[in-house]
């Protein structure tokens, strides 16, 4: 009954993550006194170990558990991204939780479980597995969004996230059911074009519904409405997680379906095209109007989903799938780092009960906390996509993929959006650097954990911006490891 050894090894990261989550929840009641340090250390250790153990799936590619999972370069790449995100979020949350007096073990356990879900999504070769992964990550994040239980904003955020999230899941499932009806299987690789007449319609409908469901998850227009509210209301470290992790996993799932199921590329192409264009504009235009930094960053992540969709459309359009896929993967890594850095910074600066989230609260920050402000400015410039930062290369690869697939107009729209985005990113920088400091509240000193997370994110932003060769090579390998159409 026990699965083969190598299958277990391939699943090592997920196993470690789950076990550390369970362990955390088990030992928490027995701890007192210095429990905080122990819990955080355990959680960080768990996610760190999972990150390290990704070496197993990396060295043992293949399918596992009778074809339920497919461990390839692609899934390993996404694994590393989401595990790194989890690791950094865990370290970055500790001080926030202290400040909000919600320091509990299950917070970390939920982060770990959510990560398990994302990892499973990345490796799913079959829709049932994908669904289980999706739900594991979603349900954990629903709870995390409402983790500040006594704060109405947080409740509201969780509520909205939950309702729209499960609505989206329902759509996703209905799509799967139709797909199953059309092809008679839930294995992605076996979903060939149906020969029985009448079933193509079913297949298209199923793919359409699935796309809607996943579009909700990645906050693609016109299904992005929940994003700003949920991101704004959730505890900020959770927002950091939501913006980088689940999004990466959902994109990974989309990509895998796109690359594996032949019909998806052609059927999805225009939907992706339109959605990409819409998402970029909706996100950027709305972000300009925001006065709350957290909300502005939420809109900015919508627009970034749009950028990634451009690469996805590029992958769907051409026979050179790998160029688009590699661009998506690279951007996901880049985006996860910079967005995470930005949100963690905001979570620290927000102070007790997230009081200081207005742009005005950032006035003159450069004078008072020069290093932190420089870090934040770096993330913002990277989100804007200026060279030397990783955001530029990410965008560059997207441009590259789009033009290689002859999506010239989409590339032009992306270019226009870059300029629109400059308005709001620059506004924050202006306030930080060019206005007199706000004297009413003293900024709290940076705890070392937050400093650590910010420096990792900043270093990554520079590294990926200056020496993309290595990571891009990995992304390209990952893209090539997908089963071709």
């Amino acid at each position, binding site marked *: 009954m026990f699965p083969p050894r190598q299958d277990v090894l391939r699943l090592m990261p997920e196993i470690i993550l789950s076990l550390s989550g369970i362990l955390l929840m088990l030992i928490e009641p027995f701890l007192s006194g210095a429990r905080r340090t122990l819990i955080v250390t355990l959680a960080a250790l768990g996610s760190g170990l999972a990150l390290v153990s990704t070496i197993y799936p990396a060295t043992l590619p293949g399918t596992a558990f009778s074809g339920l999972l497919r461990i390839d370069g692609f899934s390993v790449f996404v694994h590393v991204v989401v595990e790194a995100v989890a690791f950094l979020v865990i370290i970055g949350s500790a001080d926030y939780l202290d400040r909000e007096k919600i320091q509990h073990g299950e917070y970390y356990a939920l982060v770990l479980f959510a990560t398990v879900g994302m990892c499973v999504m990345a490796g799913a070769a079959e829709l049932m597995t994908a669904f289980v992964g999706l739900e594991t990550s979603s349900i954990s994040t629903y709870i995390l969004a409402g983790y500040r239980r006594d704060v109405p904003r947080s409740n509201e955020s969780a509520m909205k996230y939950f309702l729209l999230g499960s609505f989206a899941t329902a759509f996703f499932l209905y799509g799967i059911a139709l797909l199953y009806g059309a092809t008679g299987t839930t294995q992605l690789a076996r979903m060939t074009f149906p020969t029985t007449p009448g079933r193509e319609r079913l297949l298209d409908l199923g793919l359409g519904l699935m796309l809607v469901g996943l579009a909700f998850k990645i906050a693609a227009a016109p299904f992005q409405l929940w994003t700003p509210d949920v991101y704004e209301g959730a505890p900020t470290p959770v927002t950091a997680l939501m913006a980088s992790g689940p999004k990466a996993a959902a994109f990974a799932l989309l990509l895998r379906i796109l690359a594996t199921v032949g019909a998806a590329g052609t059927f999805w192409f225009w939907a992706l095209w339109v959605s990409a264009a819409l998402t970029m504009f909706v996100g950027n235009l709305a972000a300009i109007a925001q006065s709350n930094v957290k909300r502005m960053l939420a809109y900015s992540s919508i627009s970034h989903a749009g950028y990634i969709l451009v690469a996805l459309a590029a992958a769907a359009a051409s*026979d*050179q799938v*790998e*160029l688009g896929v590699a661009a998506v993967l690279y951007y996901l890594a880049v985006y996860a780092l910079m967005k995470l850095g930005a949100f963690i910074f905001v979570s620290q600066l927000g102070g007790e009960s997230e009081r200081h989230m207005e742009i005005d609260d950032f006035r003159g920050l*450069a*004078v008072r906390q*020069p290093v932190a402000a420089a870090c934040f400015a770096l993330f913002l*410039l990277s989100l804007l996509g*200026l*060279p*030397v930062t990783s955001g*530029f290369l990410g965008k*560059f690869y997207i*441009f*590259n993929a789009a*033009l*290689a697939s002859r999506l010239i107009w989409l*590339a*032009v729209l992306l*270019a*226009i959006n*870059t*300029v629109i985005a*400059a*308005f709001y990113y*620059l506004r924050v920088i*202006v306030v930080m*650097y*060019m206005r007199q400091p706000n004297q009413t509240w003293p900024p709290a000193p940076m705890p070392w954990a937050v400093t650590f997370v910010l420096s990792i994110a900043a270093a990554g932003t520079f590294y990926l911006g200056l*020496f*993309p*060769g290595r990571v*891009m*090579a990995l992304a*390209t390998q990952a893209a*090539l490891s997908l089963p*071709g159409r």
Partner: protein
Amino acid sequence: MNQTHILSWILFTPLIGAIVLLFVPRQLDNAQRVIGNVFGFLGLAVSLPLIWRFQIGTPGYQFRENYDWIPSIGAHYSLGIDGISFLLVMLTTILGAISILSSWSAIQNRKKEYYILFLLLQTGMLGVFMALDFFLFYLFWEVMLVPMYFLIGVWGSDRRLYAAIKFFLYTLAGSVLMLLAILALYYRAHEVAGAGAAYTFDIPTSLGAVPQFSTTLQRILFWGFFFAFAIKVPMFPFHTWLPDAHTEAPTAGSVILAGVLLKMGTYGFIRFSLPLLPTDAVARQHIINILMVLSVVGIIYGALVCLMQKDMKKLIAYSSVSHLGFCTLGIFALNPHGVSGSVIQQINHGISTGALFLIVGVLYERRHTRMISEYGGLSTPMPNFAAIYLIATLSSLGLPLLNGFIGEFTILSGVFQVSLRWTAWAVVGIVLGAAYLLWLYQRVMFGPVTNPMNEHLPDLNMREYATLVPLMLLAFWIGIYPKPLFRVLDVPVRQIVEQVNPGYYNSATAQRWGEKPPVAAANDAARTESDSTKALAASAPPAIIAASSEPIAVNTAEKR
């Protein structure tokens, strides 16, 4: 080819300075500006060997450095300079050192950040002039945006935020379009090179493939690059960011902005836009006509607006629009006189307008106002200042024996070969230029001291002499003995003109103007392949392109 690292040293010395400054504690106020200045001058010092090591008369790029950077897309760390970029690099290092020195007492708050950003800016600008790889070029082109934005926004005057954001957005809009154009060029060049060739961002290789493109694509590419450069120069309808940015920037920022940043636009025109001109005669003439008209409008409009300014700095800013109009006019005359005159004029503009901005800075530091009406009769309390100001004014308006005359005259002689009408309009611009500059001088310096606050203004101090006198010397040198500059420019300009205007050297006009037919054939054999921009224009490029780098092409070609 033996690789020297002199360009890398020049490029990264300022960056090293910025990094060193990063670790200087904030409390050591004086140390920050000392270190800033040391690296400012070090930046100049390391560039000096170029002067004797640069080989005049050698075609192609010199001091080349070439390393793989991002092999998967064919981006290289590739540097090299020819005569044109050599002059601009020297201009950058000289003006850089001078402007850093000029900030000594002008910048009082947040010195550390100021010097760091200034040094970063320096690296960015130098990179633009040195890069021989589109990717690297674009990187520097965009990078330099950020420090300039901060320099204007943090250390500028009252309306600095507006000016900074406007500057940023205008430039960004242009450069994003350019990025698309670069990519289009990249793909098309690869297609032209044929299957099996590697993708490359190498500038000479990519541009060499252009003549084989369709006219439509050539047109699209030309306009794609055009906006980025036209905004930077700035050409007439895109100039509105410039007066704001110049006026609000701190003195040193204005000097660099006018002296070097604008030259990035004209440099782009020469280096990229000219080779990108459509090969089809009709399409080309169409584009040239538009650009000539825009240049002339810029010259006249800029000059007219100058006449109405109340703010000294704004006046000088608008005079840049007018002067840069001459530069673009010369470039698109497409003959050796026009192009080399344009480059000389770019240098001149850097020197004289830089000096004028420094002069306004001197006054501003004393009185904290730039309004012309606040001054008057300054020649009485500040005689030495008056003399230097006069030289700068005269050099800017183009008096013989000073640098401005050489540039403008050469440009006009180049334009004259093409069209009398445009020359006539441009001359009107010169007349107007004399008018507004002299009128400004008269209002500020002559007459009785009208404002009692001006009665006891101190004359220039040593540091101010140190910033202004070198520029004056350069102005005289170029005005009296410009021959070395022309010699440096001769070969590269000849190469460019041969490439974009192949009929020129055989035409009757050329004979009349004493131009000898090209010695191209003899030189071609001696030239190394990647150095040549123009050999590609004539013959098939695959061999040359194939000589570059590899991987991604393999990946895509071996698609399952």
